[in-house]
């Protein structure tokens, strides 16, 4: 009813049809915009607001003075933040790389016709469906030095000293990458599979008739045609990987020797453990800015690709 009345009202206002449609469209989008404004823009703006203040929860006597960009200046000189930023980038790079490689392999396999494909497709998604906290706990057990599955597989049960994977800075970091790759490769596979299914079989038939081998068919047909899907998978995975938190929280708490301390975990510690709301928010804003610029970059790339295809 309301919509009808609204529409009639725009008619009586004697606006052009296209203007009326635009107004109507805006009206329909409004609830969604409101939702985004409340749950996305407000927290971001509020974090930014907090980051311009010095707020220390356990020292209310200091009040909460506005200090401009002082928190950001401090962040620039914060060796721990820099270290965790490097860790985060290393994690993003390593995990998205392997996830795309494995995702592509999985997608190619489950795109083929074979008996039991339905079950395999469902099974591939299981890791992705497990909550990260649960998966992290599982991997923590797998990497445990005393009763971990990995040590059992490598050394059997009769050895006195095992490898303590999570006690070594390099292996602890790798362990987190492994857990993430295991968990989210199937997500990348799912998106790439969607891309694969849009490739018409005729292209492969024609290529085969022309005498193209499997590698050439993959390189000249499959790869170019699934590029948009790959880019989308890359976008999602990069942004997600940049915000890694739960794996670190459960598996290592940032240790040993801060080797697995990532930006999100550092910010969390500042806000929740140390009560430094202002400085912690500054770290959150940094995480937001980096993810935002990465996504802008990707969206431009994907957007331009799609436009190219249309012309």
């Amino acid at each position, binding site marked *: 009813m309301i919509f009808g009345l609204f529409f009639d009202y725009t008619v009586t206002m004697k606006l052009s049809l296209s203007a009326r449609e635009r107004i109507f469209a805006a009206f329909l989008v409004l609830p969604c915009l409101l939702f985004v404004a409340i749950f996305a823009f407000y927290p971001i703006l509020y974090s930014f607001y907090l980051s311009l203040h010095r707020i220390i929860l356990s020292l209310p006597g200091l009040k909460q003075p506005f200090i401009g960009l002082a928190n950001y200046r401090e962040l620039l000189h914060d060796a721990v933040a820099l270290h965790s930023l490097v860790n985060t980038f290393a994690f993003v790079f390593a995990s998205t790389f392997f996830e795309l490689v494995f995702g592509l392999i999985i997608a190619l396999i489950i795109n083929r016709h074979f008996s039991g494909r339905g079950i395999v497709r469902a099974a591939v998604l299981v890791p992705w469906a497990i909550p990260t906290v649960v998966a992290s706990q599982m991997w923590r057990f797998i990497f445990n030095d005393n009763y971990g599955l990995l040590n059992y597989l490598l050394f059997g049960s009769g050895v006195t000293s*095992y490898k*303590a994977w999570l006690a070594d800075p390099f292996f602890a970091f790798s362990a987190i990458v492994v857990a993430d790759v295991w968990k989210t490769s199937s997500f990348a596979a799912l998106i790439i599979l969607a891309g694969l299914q849009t490739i018409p079989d005729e292209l492969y038939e024609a290529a085969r008739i022309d005498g193209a081998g499997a590698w050439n068919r993959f390189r000249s047909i499959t790869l170019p045609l699934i590029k948009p899907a790959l880019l989308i998978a890359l976008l999602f995975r990069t942004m997600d990987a940049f915000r890694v938190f739960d794996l670190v929280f459960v598996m290592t708490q940032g240790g040993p020797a801060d080797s697995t301390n990532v930006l999100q975990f550092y910010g969390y510690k500042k806000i929740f453990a140390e009560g430094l709301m202002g400085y912690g928010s500054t770290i959150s804003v940094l995480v937001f800015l980096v993810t935002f610029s990465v996504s802008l970059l990707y969206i431009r790339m994907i957007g331009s690709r799609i436009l190219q295809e249309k012309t």
Partner: protein
Amino acid sequence: MKRTCLSSSRHRAGIWPVLKGLTVCLVLALALIMPACKKKETAGTTTVRFVTWKPNQPAVWDEIIRTFEAGHPGIRVVRETGPHSSTGFHDLLTQKLKNKSPDVDVFFMDVIWPSEFAAAGWAMPLDSYFPQGERNKFLDGTVLANTYKGHIYGVPVFVDGGMLYYRKDLLEKYGFKPPRTWGEMVSQAKKITSGEAADNVAMEGFSGQFKQYEGLVCDMMEYILSNGGNIVDPDTGQPGIAAKPAVDAVRFVRDQIIGNIAPEGELTYEEPESLALFTQGKAVFLRNWPYAWEVSNDPSRSRVAGKVGIAKLPHFPGGRSYSTLGGWQLAISSYSKHKDAAWTFIKFLTSSRIQKLLAVKAGLAPTRKALYDDGDILKADPQFRSMKDVFLTAYPRPRSPLYPAISNILQRYFSSAISDRNSDIEGEARKASQEMEKIIALTRE
């Protein structure tokens, strides 16, 4: 670009699904909000919400709550159980208190939190409930830890102090007395493990808590203090970790403990993992809190029941034994709506009767001085007789409203110093010391 013209009827046809969708969303949103609206309490019953951690001995705590409710029909206790780890529990609790949640009445407070919670206004001062005369009945150190700017904010329930557990049978077998210095401990551990290895028994020499977390600070502080060093100098208030005794103690842990008599896996251990190694019979020595006595002597949970001895922690030549003061207090949230009922509950939990129960059944060391002469307790926990001194002199961690920030700096420093054989301990210590100075300066403003 072409724009398709839609007739008005097509528009309306497109609207109804949207409306339906909106309705569904609204209903869902309401369904989410509704449970938050609280049910009315039955007349005459007050609900006390108790935020606690996952206990090591859940059955004992169940019994205590049941006893309380039976004796106080007007009060119902609802427990909310947080993580076992102190740090995890802190994050959960402060999140609630920061939001002024009325769902917290009574909560557990680690010995390092009272300054922070008092300064932030989260814990209410208990001066009127807990007068000086009553406070005098508790161990001095525990009362001091709960005092901030002359007011008291918590009532200590049990006290913790680091102590050395050892395998009585093995030390006897090799003709050793409990070690008095850290060096002695290392050489005994090496002799015993190599001797046992000859008999095909795989063992580690020592187990402790060396993961990057709060426990690491407790363990490392004991090494540093027992070498005459300091975390924060009590006279000047300045950090002491870059001074020679402190640096030497840290180097000892890196070179003589980790990867020598303790497995590298120790760098990932908190209390439960380090205790498990000991109760499985795979470690000669263990540094842990008093609760480990109960667990390691329980035949259903331990393979070494009856073979466990305890002693003061060793020290370095020329130093003396130190034990980090731990333990838990009960406090009332400033935002509680049932403060009197909350106090009734705290008074009950910290009474002689319950502390005795906790000592006998859960091995938790009482905070009331008089209980250290109680026959029943000493029969159940003969270790308390020799540990009383340890508890009386247990050393507190730096008391500061910003202790969590100080602790995070220390955790980072200790973890990097001991997990890398080639770490530049002096350099790292200086850096950590400067970071600490910055934090300490903030509290002086």
